[in-house]
């Protein structure tokens, strides 16, 4: 039990800045979104009428919204799975080497600091159909690359850009997880004649499962909400709807399409999704404490 100070007014004064910012810039807009979701506004913003659950009904009967959900799932799981697989491979290798571990770490983690939008632009020029070296190389191999027209290829481009940025994060956490695996266990297995691959799959990988699950949640949250810049700087949700993930759609329908009611309803749905993911994250972290 911590010893406390007796003052009664002071704590409120100390909390005031945080609570004020939270109330004005977080809770008020969230409340506005909630309210707006039940109204239909005309295009000029002059009048609005109460429409009840119509915005939500429209949303959930709109095939485009389901398509966007599907796109988000494909995008997020691709980013999470590729990013984690590559990072795990690199982390296992880095855990093995004796010389130069820190150098490798330095050379692998810096993309964390690159803004998602910039990551998108960097990969865009590599894949630009008229001048990008990779696109031209693919073409010479007989594969027509044009992410301006081909939705699947546009998706591949944004997945690569988003994954590239996230490998560093996964790498650091996998490396820390690997270093926490007791050496004695691995030695015992080696003495019993298990080779490196068998040791990895039967001992190391199962012991890493808390890290893996934690990273899966973090990566999905990242792909859901932090990749706006990648999409906006490269494909803008296109071609067609092929890369229009939920967090991009809510922006586009609100700011470009000016359909405020629908955008607000989408905000409410997204807030619910973040809420669920945050709870999962916290539940898990409570469990992780018991693991160790």
């Amino acid at each position, binding site marked *: 039990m*911590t010893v406390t100070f007796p003052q009664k007014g002071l704590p409120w004064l100390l909390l005031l800045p945080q609570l004020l910012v939270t109330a*004005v810039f977080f809770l008020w807009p969230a409340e506005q979104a909630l309210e707006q979701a039940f109204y239909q506004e005309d295009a000029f913003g002059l009048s609005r009428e109460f429409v009840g659950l119509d915005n939500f009904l429209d949303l959930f009967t709109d095939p485009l919204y389901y398509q966007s959900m599907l796109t988000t799932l494909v995008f997020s799981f691709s980013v999470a799975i590729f990013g984690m697989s590559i990072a795990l491979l690199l982390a296992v290798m880095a855990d093995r080497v004796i010389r130069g571990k820190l150098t490798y770490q330095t050379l692998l983690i810096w993309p964390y600091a*690159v803004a998602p939008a*910039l990551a998108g632009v*960097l990969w865009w020029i590599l894949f630009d159909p008229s001048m990008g070296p990779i696109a031209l190389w693919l073409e010479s191999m007989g594969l027509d690359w044009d992410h301006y027209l081909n939705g699947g290829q546009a998706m591949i481009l944004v997945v690569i850009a988003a994954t590239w940025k996230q490998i560093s994060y996964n790498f650091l956490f996998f490396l820390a997880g690997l270093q926490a695996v007791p050496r004695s266990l691995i030695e015992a297995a080696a003495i019993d004649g298990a080779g490196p691959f068998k040791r990895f799959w039967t001992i190391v990988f199962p012991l890493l499962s808390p890290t893996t699950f934690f990273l899966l949640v973090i990566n999905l949250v990242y792909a859901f909400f932090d990749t706006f810049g990648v999409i*906006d700087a490269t494909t803008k949700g296109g071609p067609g709807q092929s890369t229009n993930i939920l967090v991009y759609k809510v922006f586009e329908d*609100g700011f470009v399409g000016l359909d405020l009611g629908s955008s607000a309803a989408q905000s409410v749905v997204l807030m619910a999704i973040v809420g669920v993911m*945050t709870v999962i994250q916290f539940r898990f972290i409570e469990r992780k404490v018991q693991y160790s």
Partner: protein
Amino acid sequence: MIENRPWLTFVGHATLWLGVALVALPVWMALVASTHPASAFGVGHIPLWFGDAGVETWKSVLLEEAGNGIESSVTFMMLNSLVMALGITFGKIAISLLSAYAIVFFRFPFRNFCFWIIFMTLMLPVEVRIVPTYEVVANLGLLNSFTGLTLPLIASATATFLFRQCFLSIPSELVEAARIDGAGPFRFFFDILLPLTRTNIAALFVILFIYGWNQYLWPLIITTDNAYYTLVMSIKRMLSVTDGDIEWNRIMATTLLAMLPPVAVVIGMQKLFVKGLVDAEK
């Protein structure tokens, strides 16, 4: 090392070098692209080796104007980015330190309720409620201002949690001793708490600086005045040039300059950065 397997060691190094090369590939290309004149990009492919127009482009981008419709120089936008990043970082750290202090070291009604309010910000990232947040900031007259760029982003549940954890781990004997020696809440905060949490603050500073510098959507929608453009969002404006061709050499130079400060921070303060990442996820 459990056993000596030379071929596996070799595979390890080879894989890591391949990984390093793949990670560096786009930056290498961007660097090469920035050294060629704009006219080199229309004719088939980006040259794969450095050209000789690099110095000119970089100088012009840094000192004159970024081009592609942006009149400000990169240096000017870097200052804007720096003000925004530092504003967000110091703001978040300051108000989170204060609120964690209040929650841990005082007892008052609705203490848990306040904690939950702060917790809720975690569930409301700006991207998902972008339209109403824009309206609120517009109503307050904060568009095109540094206050508008920083203030709405400085509430932080993560930082508050982190400091709360730090404060809770401080032995109560220390607090008692300070109380007996007559230290009031202010003295205790500045002379004991701050020095004890110094490394945590520094680690969080690194993470938050990167977060602040890389803000993209928020500056993009609330600034329409060149004077407030930040570096990361200016790329988007440069890409959406309507008349004439995109000057890729300038865009690549600007992109590299936009990522330089946070990347330098990660590499230069690697230990603090790693600590910050791990701390922030606890």
